[in-house]
């Protein structure tokens, strides 16, 4: 990538005006796109620390007005939001470990070209990407296996994340030297030892990508929880946010902490909308840039090999 940038920059001197003009047009265009994408997020951020009346009067287009952290204080004082947050962290951690282990356990055997039945097994998993039982039959099976109300109902019905598994399988096939695996096996290491000692450490980059993808999926998931977890105490953060953002209702614990009457409550309800969105979105937005270059590569492997 760097090489492309360098060579074209050197040539830029000799290629005349048309390239330079197109550069300017491109940069302007990209800045416009950046604004379109980033501005809504920026607006939510400044609104979350501004006086809600100023927000609704249109005084916070560029900078916060009437700076306040009340929204964040209220979010962290609200027991249902805090419980939701802790639930989400728990589900994300356990779900991510589960998902990545499942992906690895499937991808490694399927990456072994010598494995009898490899093709059949691959197709067996890939079919589930395109065809499923649908909402109700899956629900009934989850119910009859006794998972309703259990945290495992969030992980098990998803099975193996087949799209991600294929990316990892392709990585094993293309990026881990076969000689190393063969050498280890000649030295007497079992398949399992080779997997743990050689394959897993050598695939750290793709593992980082899988960890982030799974984390994001579990962090943002609410639909599965809505169907399978009836107890509000076990609801994850996005489902709690639904009451605040979509139904626009103040929770009981919020109402009890406010003494200033309806207007104050209303003001705080509006402020909490913004601050809770920030609190929910920020962790994932901080994490993904760290593995960005890996998932770009991962997609390359996935794109080429399908």
């Amino acid at each position, binding site marked *: 990538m760097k090489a492309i940038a360098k060579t074209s920059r050197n040539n830029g001197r000799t*290629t005349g005006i048309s390239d330079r003009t197109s550069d300017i047009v491109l940069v302007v265009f990209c800045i416009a796109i*950046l604004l379109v994408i980033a501005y809504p997020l920026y607006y939510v951020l400044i609104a979350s620390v501004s006086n809600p009346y100023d927000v609704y009067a249109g005084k916070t287009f560029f900078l916060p007005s009437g700076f306040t952290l009340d929204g964040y204080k209220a979010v962290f004082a609200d027991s249902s939001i805090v419980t939701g947050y802790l639930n989400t962290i728990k589900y994300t951690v356990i779900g991510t470990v589960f998902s990545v282990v499942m992906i690895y356990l499937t991808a490694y*055997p399927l990456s072994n070209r010598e494995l009898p039945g490899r093709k059949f097994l691959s197709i067996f998993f890939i079919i589930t990407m395109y065809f499923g039982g649908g*909402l109700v039959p899956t629900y009934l099976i989850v119910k009859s296996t006794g998972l309703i109300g259990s945290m495992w109902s969030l992980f098990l019905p998803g*099975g193996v994340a087949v799209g991600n598994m294929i990316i990892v399988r392709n990585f094993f096939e293309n990026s881990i030297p076969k000689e190393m695996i063969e050498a280890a096996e000649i030295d007497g290491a079992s398949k399992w030892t080779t997997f743990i000692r050689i394959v897993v450490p050598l695939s750290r980059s793709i593992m980082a990508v899988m960890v982030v993808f799974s984390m994001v999926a579990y962090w943002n998931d609410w639909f599965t929880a809505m169907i399978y977890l009836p107890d509000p105490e076990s609801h994850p953060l996005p489902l709690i946010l639904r009451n605040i953002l979509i139904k626009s209702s103040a929770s009981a614990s919020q109402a009890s902490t406010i003494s200033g009457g309806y207007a104050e409550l209303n003001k705080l309800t509006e402020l909490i909308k913004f601050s809770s969105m920030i609190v929910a979105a920020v962790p994932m937005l901080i994490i993904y*840039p760290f593995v960005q270059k890996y998932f*770009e590569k991962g997609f390359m492997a996935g794109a*080429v090999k399908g």
Partner: protein
Amino acid sequence: MKKAKQTAAPAAVMGRKTLKRRLVSNWQLYAMLLIPLAVTIIYKYVPMYGIQIAFRDYKASRGMFGSEWVGLEWFRRFFSSPNCIRMIKNTVLLSLYSLLWSFPIPIILALMINQLRFHRFKRVVQTVLYAPHFISIMVVCGMIRIFLSPSGGLINLLMGTNIDFLTEASAFRTIYIASGIWQDAGWGMIVYMATLSNIDTTQYEAAKIDGASVFQRIRHIDIPELIPTIVLMLIMSAGNLMNVGFEKVWLLQTDLNKATSDVIAVYVYQQGIENAKYSYSTAVGLFNTVVNIILLIIVNKICSKMSDDVSFV
């Protein structure tokens, strides 16, 4: 096929013992697959087999496979329900318009950003473009609702109006599609960026020496390289044409925009989970899936006729 035969031949010469030995020597690999296979069978394949409740009158006491067989009764009921035509129409139009708008934009973005010569800036653009993909649909819908609010919502403030967009049936598709583009156009771009990064840079150099402008280079080098990926992505999107995202529609639906926001996926959820009409809901969902598969096959046929290099399934 030919290759498979060639590799199979020496194995056959070595006799059957090899297959047996290969099975035995790989036992640990099969053992690794046990848990993933079990989970996939229980939670993916058993529900597929359970689709038969669409043709049965499901009673919890008699189970998924023992309830009374009623044939196409549920389908008949769906097709004669008052909102059936509206739901099918809304589902098809919403996804068709989505596809028309959100399919080309990632391609255009990739072509343009690929031309950026300032490396640092290019990375910043990419990072920012991916960001919305990592935000929960719940938060995105919260933002949409706040921005579109008739009193003090960002859009109304900017336009100096006070329209309640979410109660306007005519605005629903635009809201759905525009927010979809905002959230996922950048992410959709990755696959094309990856393909473009495979292009041999000497091609650009040669084109430059020949005096090709940026647009000529895009037209004659980048686009031909992208065609197979575009076709593949098109087939995949077509296969999802009837899979309108339930979550977003459901979160943005109001009583007043149902004329355009009433889609099959939401109906399947309401009937199946909220009203516990298991068989009926499964039948409606199955109808949706079957239409999807037919579309997938048709598009795949058309595309594989158009280009030989790409095949799917």
